[in-house]
């Protein structure tokens, strides 16, 4: 299957810790966007990576950072975890930053902060 792969699927962390989430984009896609989806809400845009650089950023603090590798895969890092960071983190890949061809989402990583 050449869809978007996210790891891990579930994660439990303690407040104040740091976490790294990983995403492999769909084959042929070169852009990765990250979203946070709190329970019962729509996703919120965190940031987008293209050509190994952060291109766009939503309204999230600097505790949220990322990286894109030459093979287009990406990581989302969250430092100094807060209880409010508990959410489903979704990765979406696309060809180019404009999303004209649409976005393919992974199944997400469920992060629980205790």
């Amino acid at each position, binding site marked *: 299957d050449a869809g978007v792969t996210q790891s891990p699927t579930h994660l439990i962390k303690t407040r104040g810790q740091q976490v790294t989430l990983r995403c492999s984009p769909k084959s042929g896609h070169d852009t990765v966007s990250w979203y946070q989806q709190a329970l019962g809400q*729509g*996703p919120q845009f965190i940031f987008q990576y293209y050509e190994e650089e952060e291109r766009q950023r*939503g309204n999230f603090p600097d505790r949220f950072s990322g990286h894109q590798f030459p093979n287009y895969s990406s990581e989302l890092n969250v430092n100094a975890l807060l209880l409010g960071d508990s959410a489903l983190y*979704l990765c979406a890949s696309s060809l180019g930053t404009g999303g*004209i061809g649409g*976005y393919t989402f992974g199944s997400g990583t469920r992060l629980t902060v205790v």
Partner: protein
Amino acid sequence: AQSVAQPEDQVNVAEGNPLTVKCTYSVSGNPYLFWYVQYPNRGLQFLLKYITGDNLVKGSYGFEAEFNKSQTSFHLKKPSALVSDSALYFCAVRDGRNYQLIWGAGTKLIIKP
């Protein structure tokens, strides 16, 4: 401000009946509009998109949506609902400035046998 509204938290439809899930948007420039479906504890699955062209867009699983520029709406429709269509449906619009997707709050669709 750019936004998406899904006015109904929940829509209940009997199996076999037509369904409509409503979405209105506010965005600068030409809208790129999307519908996604989410099953419990799963990611988002693409249903259909409107970029340009015909106002009636056909998508996956028999769903379609009608783009109405004057009413700034993009309602999701299906002629005959299935119980398996029960899920959470999200409408999204692409922000023309920074290309992020702006999402509605979601509509829970319940199809009763």
